[in-house]
């Protein structure tokens, strides 16, 4: 092999990822739908905004959203938004009596009667509650972290994106996966994790939020959120999250 050919081979090998990239079914569907409508362009994704809260990163993913749903998205958190902005009760399921004590360290010393389970997977919960000492609305992520914010901050966050992500957090489970938490706009019913190896995992039946266990070995790349008809509402880049957590 000549030096010239060797360099050509080297370039092709180094560009392997670009040479083998394939569109996802979601991308195909989105393009087909957008090509039919009068307003085909997706707004540009904005970069993720990282907010450090305690010992973990709460990351606000800003999404690609289609123009016709933009208005709905900014106001689409419904009852969860009402709760977080102090205008209503939390959605979800009340924490069963007797379970609150010890379930969440952050509940100790505070009134746990208003805690509500937004989502639960394999015993790991996303809980909304109000801190009695400060009056702030809070989200508790499993048993390891909680974030309380003033109403104005929640309002700003919920307006920024139809999906708010937190984590990953080191919730232990038999498959050594990491928990990714999210709150979602009302029109989102399914989220999908896309991995670098081309596989995907769907979580259906979402209402206001989710808890997903993600396999870092398969290099998670994006999270997409969909409405009940399967239309993609948001796409968040999760490739650069720290998929390794040191206790």
């Amino acid at each position, binding site marked *: 092999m000549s030096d010239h050919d*060797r*360099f*050509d*081979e*080297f*370039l*092709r*090998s*180094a*560009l*392997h*990822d*670009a*040479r083998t*990239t*394939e*569109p996802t079914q979601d*991308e*195909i569907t*989105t*393009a*087909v739908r*957008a*090509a039919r409508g009068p307003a*085909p*362009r*997706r707004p*540009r*994704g904005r*970069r*993720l*905004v*990282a907010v450090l809260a305690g010992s973990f*990163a709460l990351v606000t993913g800003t999404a*690609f959203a289609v123009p016709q749903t933009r208005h709905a998205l900014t106001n689409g958190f419904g009852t969860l938004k009402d709760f977080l902005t102090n205008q209503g009760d939390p959605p979800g399921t009340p924490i069963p009596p007797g379970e609150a004590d010890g379930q969440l360290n952050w509940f100790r010393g505070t009134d746990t009667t208003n805690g509500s389970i937004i989502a639960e997977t394999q015993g790991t919960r996303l809980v909304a509650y109000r801190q009695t000492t400060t009056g702030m609305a809070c989200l508790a992520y499993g048993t390891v972290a909680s974030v309380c914010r003033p109403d104005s901050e929640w309002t700003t966050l919920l307006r920024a994106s139809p999906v708010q992500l937190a984590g990953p957090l080191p919730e232990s489970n038999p498959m050594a996966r990491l928990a990714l938490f999210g709150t979602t706009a009302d029109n989102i019913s399914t989220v999908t994790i896309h991995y670098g*190896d081309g596989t995907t995992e769907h979580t259906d039946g979402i209402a206001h939020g989710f808890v997903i266990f993600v396999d*870092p*070995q*398969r*290099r998670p*790349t*994006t999270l997409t959120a969909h409405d009940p008809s399967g239309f993609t509402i948001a*796409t968040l*880049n999760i*490739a*650069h*999250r*720290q*998929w*390794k957590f040191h206790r």
Partner: protein
Amino acid sequence: MNEDPATLLEAYRQDDSAARQRLAERALRIALRTSMGMLHDRELASDAAQDSAIEVLRSAKTVREPNHLDAWIHRIAVRHTMRLIRRQRSRTAHETPLADLPEVLEPRADGSPHDEVSRRELASTLNDAMGLLPAKQRMALVLRYVHDLSHEQIAEAMGIRPGTASALISRGTAALRTMDALEHLAHDDPGEQR
């Protein structure tokens, strides 16, 4: 990808919904690979590819020479990718980018961690080096080494003369070869790095 373009376009003109999906897939595949080679960011690449695919779907019925379908898609993909690159340049000038978290290289479950790390190091080094080249040189290299297009096809996709395409590729590869890191990597056997 091997589907005859004339057959595909004919079905698309008949409003065959399956053909519409296949044409979208074909356009997205070409555009994604071009934009991935240029941008190295799946999310941004998807943006450019979506715009390309939408234009392809909206205009495909006007294509006169079905055998030139892929060349036409390449032209559209090049235009949208270059447009996004220009937009990114102006945006990064006044936005504070998110500090990238350190990437964790996880070994694959199939037991080939070293292969994966090598490839990613290789790609990362080349990406850094290509980032130093002018955008047109990079685009010519991407069309050559991602899509394996001939100099004539590259010229058609970029809307330039074949001689200009040859010059862009020649200068681009020459510039890359002068970079120590790439020269060192290229002299290893590529087969060993896969």
